């Protein structure tokens, strides 16, 4: 898919996210919306072997959503891809649903691993990348992290070890929207300079605007080509994003981290997404 198409997919994903959350009356819009453009480009342009609805292929590229609370964005992607029916999105967070509030591998294996306790996905992604490489598979492994999430120590354990194992088939995507629950990341627990930190751990860092589709596509391509070149380094895409992106009354607002829109708000949000410019 090319940029104009991706932009329209991203809009559709945003609409579904809002609809899902309004229906379930709970969930996390802010961090779901900030990652939509990154996910749209990844799943609809970059990842290989994830096109077969209902079919899970061994040699597919893998995606792990370490910031599990943003899973509505992934469910929307999976619906668009045909892995789940769009009607099923309405079952988000319902008892018995495959679409739990946080990804549950036991119910929905395509999520690869269960997440929701922050800080763990990168380790699992690294193990997967290691194992797939040992198996001689060409698969690449992607992992979405939140910038609040990386305050967890385990993330830095993984940051330390992935370069040791030369995992050039591993690409972490940091959705740096600058906000967490108790406030801005810069106040809760400052992390800058982020790029320097990851570089110092041995990662190749690509810093981009996480809502600029062209830049996102280019970053994935750079990561892939670096992997194929045998550079032996994992890549971190440091994506500067806006929490709640695409819905003006949510953008940059910490209070929209974990609160679902009501019916009226959802209507307003969807109208804005549908009517909005090419970048949502």
């Amino acid at each position: 898919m090319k940029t104009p198409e991706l932009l329209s997919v991203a809009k559709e994903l945003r609409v579904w996210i809002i609809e899902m959350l309004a229906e379930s009356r709970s969930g996390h819009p802010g961090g779901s919306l900030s990652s939509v453009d990154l996910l749209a480009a990844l799943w609809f342009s970059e990842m290989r072997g994830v096109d077969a609805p209902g079919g899970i292929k061994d040699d597919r590229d893998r995606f792990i959503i370490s910031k599990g609370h943003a899973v509505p964005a992934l469910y929307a992607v999976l619906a668009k891809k045909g892995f789940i029916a769009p009607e099923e999105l309405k079952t988000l967070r319902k008892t018995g649903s495959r679409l739990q509030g946080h990804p549950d591998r036991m119910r929905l294996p395509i999520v690869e691993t269960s997440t929701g306790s922050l800080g763990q996905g990168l380790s699992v992604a690294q193990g997967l990348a290691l194992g797939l490489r040992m198996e001689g598979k060409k698969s690449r492994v992607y992992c979405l992290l939140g910038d609040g999430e990386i305050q967890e120590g385990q993330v830095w354990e993984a940051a330390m070890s992935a370069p040791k194992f030369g995992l050039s088939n591993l690409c972490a995507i940091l959705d740096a929207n600058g906000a967490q629950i108790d406030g801005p990341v810069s106040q809760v627990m400052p992390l800058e300079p982020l790029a320097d930190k990851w570089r110092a751990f041995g990662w190749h860092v690509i810093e981009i605007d996480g809502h600029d589709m062209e830049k996102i596509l280019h970053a994935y391509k750079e990561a892939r080509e670096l992997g194929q070149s045998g550079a032996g380094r994992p890549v971190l895409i440091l994506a500067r994003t806006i929490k709640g992106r695409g819905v003006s009354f949510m953008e940059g607002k910490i209070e929209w981290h974990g609160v679902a829109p009501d019916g009226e708000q959802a209507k307003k949000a969807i109208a804005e997404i549908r009517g909005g410019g090419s970048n949502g």
Partner: protein
Amino acid sequence: MAKATRQAFAESLVKLAGNHQEIVVLDADLAKSTKTELFAKKHPDRFFEMGIAEANMIGTAAGLALSGKLPFLCSFGCFLTGRYDTIRMSVAYSQANVRLVGTHAGLGIGDDGHSQMGLEDIALMRALPTMGVFQPMDARETELVMEYLVNDWKGPAYLRLTRQNVPDLYPEGRVFQPCKLMEIVKVDVGRPGVVCFATGAAVAEAVAAAGALLPSGIAMSVWNVHSLKPFDEEGMLAAIKGARLVISVEDHSVIGGLGSAVA
């Protein structure tokens, strides 16, 4: 003969690895103590030194399992349970086919003190959904449990091992029945007044106690429990029929271990 079950484990691991290419091993700077260095020497390409970073080791093992490998991740039991949240979500609630191996079980490790002893590991591991919990009593049984964990068990499992040597107890020629109780001291006449369940290094203690009680006319049977989860409830109910006293012995906190399973 006496041997530490950690040693028997590592020897068995090396043996099994020949026919099981899917086996990989991770350790966190304790390969000399967990004995996985035996494996590392034989299969350096399948051994991952993860440094003193257990949570990342656990998550990495989960990822390896998702790619089709059968990872054995090893450290002292207490250092593994210290990263409980990662075991809980990335392994148990992800049904990752990982073998967590915790050595240095209980007070039996000797003088190092509580910081190095697995004292609550059975309780914590038993509490996790999908997690099996196994503790062999001697070297031979360690080998048998290892074969079971490699060939048959699906999903996550915890294997608890001793630092210290334990005597050979496994009865010659006895068929191994996975996840079932095994009577190790049988009472000669009638039904036993006392029935004792024991696991791991404590089995040898229980056997010695049964012998010591005989002169005073107390007949105590001893049952070895290598599988704490699943726990053989049926076998236990049959074993305690008519008993006047049921006791359990284990090198572990009284909360959540074998005693709790029996109760």
